[in-house]
C-alpha cells in the first residue's frame, strides 16, 4: 500500500534512464587509512539515493568526493558529462551543478539570511541583484520561513538554519543535491521540519544523494538505498529489498542495531 502511494507521488518524468553521476573505482586514503575502497556507483537523473552505514564507514567522505571537497587518489567521477579532474575549471563547473547541505549548516554568520541565499546567484551565476532577491524570497517561501529573511543565522533555530542552507543550495538551481547528514546536528523536535522540506524536494524530481540516519525518511522517499561499511558498498537495493529482505550479513547486522 505504502509502495503504490509513493510511486504515485514520484512523477514518472522524474526518473529517466539518463545517467547523471558515474563513479568508477574510487579509492581514497587519509594518510595510510584506506577510507574508500573501489566504490562503483551510477546514479540516474531524478533518482533519490539514500546512503546508509555505520559511522566511519566512509559514506560522508564518499558524498564529499562528488563535488570535489575531498580529492580522490584513484578512480573516475563524471557528473553530467563533466569529468572531475584536478583542473579547477572542471571542479567549479561541477560545483555549479551540485548543491550541498552540511551537517553543521555552515551558513555565513555575518550575512543576513537573504544575503546568504543571494550570494551564489549574484557572484557565481552573475544574476542581477533584483532577480537573485526574487529567487531567494521564493525559496524561503518554499522552505517555509519567508519571515526570517532579514535576520542573521545566529538568530534562527537549528531547523530553520538548515532549511536556509537548503534554500541556499537550491538558489544555484543545481541538477544534483548532496545532503551530508542534514539532521544529525538537530534537536529531535526540529528534524521533522527539515525532513519535510527534503521530502518535498525529493518529489520535485531533482537528483538527490542523501547520507542520513533517518530510516523512516529512507524508506519513504528513497528510490534506491546504498549501504556502506568499511569504505565499501555492501549492498544496494530498493528500500523494500534492503529493509525487508537484506541479503548481506553486514546489512542485517546494521539494520538490527539501528531499527
Amino acid at each position, binding site marked *: 500500500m505504502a509502495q503504490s502511494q509513493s510511486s504515485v507521488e514520484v512523477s514518472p518524468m522524474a526518473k529517466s534512464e539518463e545517467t547523471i553521476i558515474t563513479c568508477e573505482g574510487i579509492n581514497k586514503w587519509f594518510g595510510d587509512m584506506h577510507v574508500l575502497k573501489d566504490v562503483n556507483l551510477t546514479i540516474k537523473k531524478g533518482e533519490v539515493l539514500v546512503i546508509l552505514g555505520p559511522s566511519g564507514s566512509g559514506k560522508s567522505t564518499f558524498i564529499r568526493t562528488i563535488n570535489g571537497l575531498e580529492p580522490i587518489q584513484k578512480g573516475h567521477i563524471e557528473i553530467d558529462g563533466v569529468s572531475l579532474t584536478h583542473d579547477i575549471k572542471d571542479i567549479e563547473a561541477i560545483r555549479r551543478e551540485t548543491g550541498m547541505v*552540511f551537517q553543521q549548516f555552515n551558513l555565513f554568520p555575518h550575512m543576513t539570511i537573504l544575503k546568504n541565499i543571494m*550570494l*551564489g546567484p549574484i557572484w557565481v551565476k552573475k544574476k542581477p541583484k533584483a532577480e537573485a532577491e526574487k529567487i531567494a524570497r521564493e525559496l524561503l517561501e518554499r522552505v517555509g520561513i519567508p519571515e526570517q529573511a532579514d535576520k542573521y543565522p545566529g538568530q534562527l533555530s537549528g531547523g*530553520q538554519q538548515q532549511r536556509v542552507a537548503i534554500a541556499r543550495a537550491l538558489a544555484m538551481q543545481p541538477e544534483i543535491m548532496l545532503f551530508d547528514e542534514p539532521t544529525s546536528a538537530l534537536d529531535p523536535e526540529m528534524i521533522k521540519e527539515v525532513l519535510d522540506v527534503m521530502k518535498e524536494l525529493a518529489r520535485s524530481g531533482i537528483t538527490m544523494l542523501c547520507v542520513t540516519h533517518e530510516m523512516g525518511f529512507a524508506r519513504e522517499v528513497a528510490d534506491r538505498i546504498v549501504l556502506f561499511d568499511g569504505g565499501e558498498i555492501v549492498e544496494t537495493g530498493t528500500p523494500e529489498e534492503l529493509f525487508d529482505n537484506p541479503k548481506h550479513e553486514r546489512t542485517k547486522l546494521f539494520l538490527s542495531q539501528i531499527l
Partner: protein
Amino acid sequence: MSVDLKIVENKQMIAPPKTSASLWDWVRNNLFNNWYNTILTFVAGFIIIGIAYNVLSWVLFEAQWTVITNNYRLFMVGRYPLSELWRIWSLLTIVSFMFGLCSGSFKGTILRLSGILAGIYLIHLLAPFTASSSKVWLAVQLAGLVIGFLIALKLPYNKRIAIIGWVITIPLVFFFIHGFGILPEVRTTFWNGLLLTVLLAGVAIILSFPLGVLLALGRTSKLPAIKYFCIGYIELIRAVPLITIFLMAQVLIPLFLPTGLTIDNLLRVMLGATLFTAAYAAENVRGGLQSIPNGQYEAAKAIGLNPFQTTFFIVLPQALRAIIPTIVGQSISMFKDTSLVAIVGLLDLLGIAQSVKSNPEFLGRHMEVYIYIAFVYWVIAYSMSYSSRRIEKSLGVGER
C-alpha cells in the same frame, strides 16, 4: 511549517531575591563588615585622601601652567608658519565636518567620538588663554561638526557619501599641510607637535592595515614563493625594535641612496612606521583567519565561489570582525610609539615638549609639560579604546 511550542505559563512567578542595596548597606557590607576591614578602610582612605590632596593642590596652586598656555601653538603645530596656520584650521574644519557627517550617518560610536571632539573644542573655546582668532576658528569647528551632522540626517545614501568623503579627505589633508606648489610649500621639518604625532600615527595605522592583510593572506598562501617571502618579512621585522627601524630610516637609508637622490626625512620615518606596524597587523590578521571554521570554506566552495570571492566575501569579513579589539589595541600602541621619533630628532608632541622644557624661560617646569602631554596622549588613546569596545559590542548583534 514551523512548529510553535507554547510553554505553559507559570502563574506563580517568584521574584528573584533582592540584590540591590542602598549605598549605606553597600558601605557597611563591603568596607566595615569586621574590625580589620574597618582598619583597612581607614588606612586606605587616609592614603587616598593624602594623594588626592597633594595632587590637587599641586595642579591647582603650585603648578605654573603658563608653560603650556604660552606655548600652546608649539604643542599643537610646532614651527608651522603663523601666516599659513589657516591651512591647518581649514583642514581641521574639513575633518570636523566629516566627523559630523559620519555621526549623522552611522550614529553610535562615531557620534560619541564627535561628542568628545566637540567637548575638546568647547573647552579650548572657553579657556581664557585662547587667542581670539583661534576662538573664531574653534567656533567654526563646532559649526562644522553640527552642519555635517544635520546634512547627513537629510541626505540619502549618507553612509556611502561619508565613506567617499573620507577617501577624498585624506589626500586633501596632505594638500593643505604641504601645499604641493599650489599653496606656498611648507617643508616637512616645520610639521611638528601634535600635528606630526597624529599624522604619523594616522598614516602608519591606515596604510599598515591593508598591507598587513596582504601579508597575512600571503603567509597562508599555497604558493611557496609568496608564502616564504611573507614569512621572511614578518619574522624579520618583528625581530627588530621600532627604534632601530627609525634609526635606520634616519641614518642608514640616506647612506645607501645614490647621491643626488634624497627621500624626505619624515617620509622615511612614516615608511618605517608603516612597514613595522604591517608585520604586526599581519600576525593579528592571520590569527583572525585561523579562527574561521573549515565549514565556512567548504560552504563557499560548495556554492561555487572561487578562492578570491571566498576570501573577500566569507573569510576576511569574519576574520577582521574577530580581531577588531586587537587591531585597535595595536593602533593605540602605534600611536604612542610615534613618540620614539623624538629620539631621532623629529619634533613630535614629545619632541616639542623636550624643547619647550629646555627653554630657559620655563626652566624647571618639566612636570607641567610632561603631565600635559601625557594627558593629551591619554585622551586620544582612551577615545580609541572606548570606540573599540563600542564597535565590538555593536558587531556582536546577530553573530553566531
